[in-house]
């Protein structure tokens, strides 16, 4: 896939300008700096074509990629659109000087952007940079007046000199200049990765090296760990896993690798044994590692109350280990080196890896999301049948999850609440928002009723945009907390009652005769069917095969005519379904704002920005495919281009 950078080309278009303006915010200052202006102009008049090109290249640097580009212009852009401000470009320009002129000619045709604009952007950028610089230099800060460019630069020179003076050991004497001292870079890497580096011998799992940062993560000091067996610090159940990863032998002959291009598993046909390890074979695995409990006394106390099993698992955290196999000929190992396996191998093999603690959430073992004990989750099919029940339901309802699973939630609702809950049920199926129910009574296993309040939302598959099921968070309402918002609830109840009155005749199971429970479940079925009918009538719903990329496209603000198409649908449906007139708003909500809630940021994506306008005329599937193809193509290839052999490591 080609994208075209360079405001020089796309700069003429309105979005480009706005993007530019945000990028170079505060850059307006140049306007009231006439001296600057003159200087720049003179600069232009003196400079050669090559220099001019370089200044325009500068202009491009700060540009962002513009989603909508003009197809027609793309061909002409190719010859020179490097948006770097390195001298390479300049040289390149000078080399094809004659080409350059021709190109500029073409460019002029495409973009009638006045040269002054380009110049202004360049100045703006420079000024922004100078402003930023002056903000970072201590000696500039106390000066209240605006410092001119030259002064800022001079102060920068002074500041840099003082900085270098204070840390001369790095910048002057290092054998290769670098922006960061090595020590510091290592530190930053580990800090960013939230991990530690370790080296483990393959034969016995002996820890040969571990970085200082392990202290922060596992709470063991480095000295404690070095020389120990890694397996002493691995969860017993993960031992096998780690052994397998360290294994050099044929104990696990079925090395499974995966081919990212085809997605097929390939049986490794690498040479076996040591050679496999030499090659810098990559390893990536998860294991649970022990951490020292001393520092987490508070947590420990907490867990005294819980089961012993939990307490046990509390000691571990999940670590993602990524790295390479490494091996050295034993002859190269010094006297102090790890004593090699004398008998068979002439190589000392080890795993060099980075251990990262999982950043997504707390380790799984203590990852119980803190939910109030009076809360539990359930998942219902569209017709209200329980498909998932959280174990905490048992404490509240008395039922084991398996007793509830497969039954309809309507079987447990108190009759008085049925109309309201049915109405909410309808609502949730048509809305992408979370829907709160009023307090309602749920029949427990012992025949009594417990008051619950639930928050429902229909889970919509991001790809098909179809409802998969309803997720419900149920909270037990104690009488005290209930009285708090009673007034609000009662008013809610009234309105919903009215709605329900209309729909009452439609619901077969809502007769008040006792023993009607058997029919209760059919209320849900009825409601689910309503939705299906509604979908059938509505011409737009996506079947599984339709690419959803058409949807965000439709919702794109640029095409308001498309969105308006949806409205008649929603209203029509509202009219057809009896008792549903009140929910017309929800329907609209579902079609527009509601739908965005899940996808919010992503729905901004329009295909053009990725594929280019040329492709959007293709079928959506093809276009989407094109996106993926291009994405995957580059990525897998680049990912594999790592040269393992360059890897050096000194013991």
């Amino acid at each position, binding site marked *: 896939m080609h994208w075209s950078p360079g405001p020089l080309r796309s700069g003429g278009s309105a979005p480009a300008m706005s993007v530019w303006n945000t990028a170079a915010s505060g850059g307006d200052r140049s306007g009231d700096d006439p001296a600057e202006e003159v200087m720049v102009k003179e600069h232009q008049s003196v400079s050669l074509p090559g220099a001019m090109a370089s200044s325009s290249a500068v202009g491009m640097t*700060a540009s962002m990629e513009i989603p909508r580009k003009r197809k027609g212009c793309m061909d002409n852009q190719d010859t020179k659109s490097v948006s770097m401000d390195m*001298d390479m470009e300049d040289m390149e320009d000078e080399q094809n000087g004659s080409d350059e002129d021709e190109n500029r000619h073409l460019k002029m045709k495409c973009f009638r952007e006045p040269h002054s604009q380009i110049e202004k952007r360049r100045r703006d950028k420079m000024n922004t940079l100078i402003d930023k610089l002056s903000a970072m230099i201590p000696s500039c800060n106390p000066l209240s007046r605006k410092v001119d*460019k030259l002064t800022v630069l001079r102060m920068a020179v002074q500041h840099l000199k003082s900085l270098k003076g204070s840390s001369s050991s790095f910048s002057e004497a290092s*054998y290769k200049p670098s922006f960061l001292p090595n*020590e510091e870079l290592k530190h930053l890497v580990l800090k960013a990765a939230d991990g530690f580096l370790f080296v483990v011998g393959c034969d016995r799992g002996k820890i040969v090296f571990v970085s200082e940062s392990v202290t922060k993560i596992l709470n063991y000091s480095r000295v404690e760990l070095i020389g120990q067996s890694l397996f002493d610090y691995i969860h017993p159940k993960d031992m096998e896993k780690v052994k397998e990863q360290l294994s050099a032998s044929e104990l696990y002959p079925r090395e499974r690798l995966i081919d990212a291009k085809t997605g097929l598993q390939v049986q490794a046909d690498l040479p076996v044994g040591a050679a496999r390890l030499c090659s810098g074979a990559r390893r990536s695995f998860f294991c649970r590692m022990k951490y020292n409990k001393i520092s987490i006394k508070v947590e420990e106390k907490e867990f005294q109350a819980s089961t012993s099993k939990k307490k046990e698992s509390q000691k571990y955290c*999940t670590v993602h280990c990524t790295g390479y196999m490494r091996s050295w000929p034993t002859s190269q190992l010094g006297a102090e080196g790890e004593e090699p396996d004398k008998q068979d191998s002439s190589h000392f093999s080890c795993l060099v890896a980075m251990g990262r603690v999982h950043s997504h959430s707390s380790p799984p073992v203590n990852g119980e999301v803190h939910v109030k004990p009076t809360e539990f989750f359930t998942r219902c099919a569209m017709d209200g049948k329980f498909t998932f029940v959280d174990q905490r339901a048992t404490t509240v309802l008395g039922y084991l999850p398996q007793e509830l699973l497969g039954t309809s939630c309507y079987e447990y609702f108190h009759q008085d609440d049925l109309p309201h809950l049915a109405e909410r049920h309808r609502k949730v199926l048509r809305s992408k928002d979370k829907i709160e129910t009023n307090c309602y009574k749920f029949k427990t296993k012992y025949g009594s009723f417990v008051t619950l309040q639930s928050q429902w939302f229909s889970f919509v598959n991001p790809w098909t945009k179809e409802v998969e099921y309803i997720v419900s968070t149920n909270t037990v309402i104690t009488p005290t907390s209930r009285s708090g918002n009673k007034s609000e609830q009662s008013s809610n109840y009234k309105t919903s009652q009215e709605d329900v009155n209309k729909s009452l005749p439609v619901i077969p199971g809502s007769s008040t005769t006792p023993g009607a429970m058997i029919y209760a479940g059919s209320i849900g079925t009825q409601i689910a069917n309503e939705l299906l009918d509604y979908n059938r009538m509505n011409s737009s719903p996506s079947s599984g095969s339709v690419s959803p990329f058409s949807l965000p496209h439709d919702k794109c603000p640029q095409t308001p005519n498309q969105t308006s198409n949806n409205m008649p649908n929603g209203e029509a449906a509202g009219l057809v379904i009896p008792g549903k007139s009140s929910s017309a708003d929800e329907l609209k909500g579902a079609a527009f704002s509601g739908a965005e809630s899940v996808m919010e940021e992503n729905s901004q994506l329009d295909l053009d920005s990725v594929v280019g306008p040329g492709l959007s005329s293709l079928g959506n599937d093809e276009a989407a*495919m094109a996106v993926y193809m291009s994405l995957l*193509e580059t990525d897998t290839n680049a990912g594999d281009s790592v040269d393992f052999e360059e890897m050096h490591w000194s013991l």
Partner: protein
Amino acid sequence: MTADKEKRRAISREAARRRRRVESEVFEDLSRLLPLPPSVQAHLDKPSVIRLTLSYIRMHTLLKGEAWTKAQARHRVKCGRVMNGGEEPREHDGGREEEEEEEKETEEMEASEETNLYLRILEGFLIVLSTEGDMIYLSENVSKYMGLTQNELMGHNIFEFTHPCDHEEIRNSLLLTPEDVWYGAKRDLVLRIKSALTPRGRSTNLKSATWKVLHCQGRVKVCVAPSSVSCLLLTCQPLPLSHTLLSTHTFTSQHSMDMRFTYSDQRITLLLGFSTEELLGRSIYDLCHAMDINHLTKNHLNLCFKSQSVSGQYRMLVRSGGYVWVETHSAVIPGCRPSKSRPDANQPLCILCVTYVLSGVEEPSLQLSVDQIVHI
């Protein structure tokens, strides 16, 4: 009249020229002070000089009071040793200094190699972002991933190099609440970044750049005094799906774009108890714990829009009851494996998942889902 004008013009031209000369000299001074190889220094243009200076100063500020000074202290200790050496008989002095120099050189070399090792193992590069999204620092190996060198990128804004559709997400990540700063909050996002690498690993220029999907993880770092710089430390890694030894605790599966199973390897039966046939056509959303749905949805959206994703940890139900913690790495790949169950296979895209099982079966006696109930 005209002559006068001409004269005035000439004067101002001369003044401007002088001005430019002075400016250029300052720029040269500045570029010479930058920790760059002379070959690079000589060819920097003016904005680049400022850009890199800015980065250098920012990094310095950021690290003040940390290892920068630690390393300095180490240096001082060494200097001290040299000075102590000075008290020894004179004739030894020269030799010792040389020795020190040599020692330092090799030490330096080793340190750099070790650092390279860190980055290599990371299989990615390090990026330090200011709260405005300026890339204050990038590790040198960035060129391997983006095809652009450290010097070309440093000081630029990340928004210039990332997919417009990811900007909102980046912006959100850059928002630092006081709590974030205090606790060093973590960040985790999947981004598309410009890559000027050709499929063969050579770099071209940006015009033919492609999007590369990177998994960026890291944390907020703050430095308080004197001028506070808050930043994000991120490691950016391509998502590796290939060439990893899959352990016995890993299974692979393929899904249609709506996350329904179209294929799964035998190992899933061992790990989750579901037979591969049983899973065909089932949605992954049926198999997960209800509390992890948001997690999976985000993962799914990443896949739809960015083509690759890392799920983070979530719970997958086990057929016989209970659940296991897993993490899935997935990518959208073109073309489904033609199978007997789906001979048409005209779905052009399919999701490939590698799922790592992280834990044993937890709460094995619990039946949470209809799928776990034994049908007799």
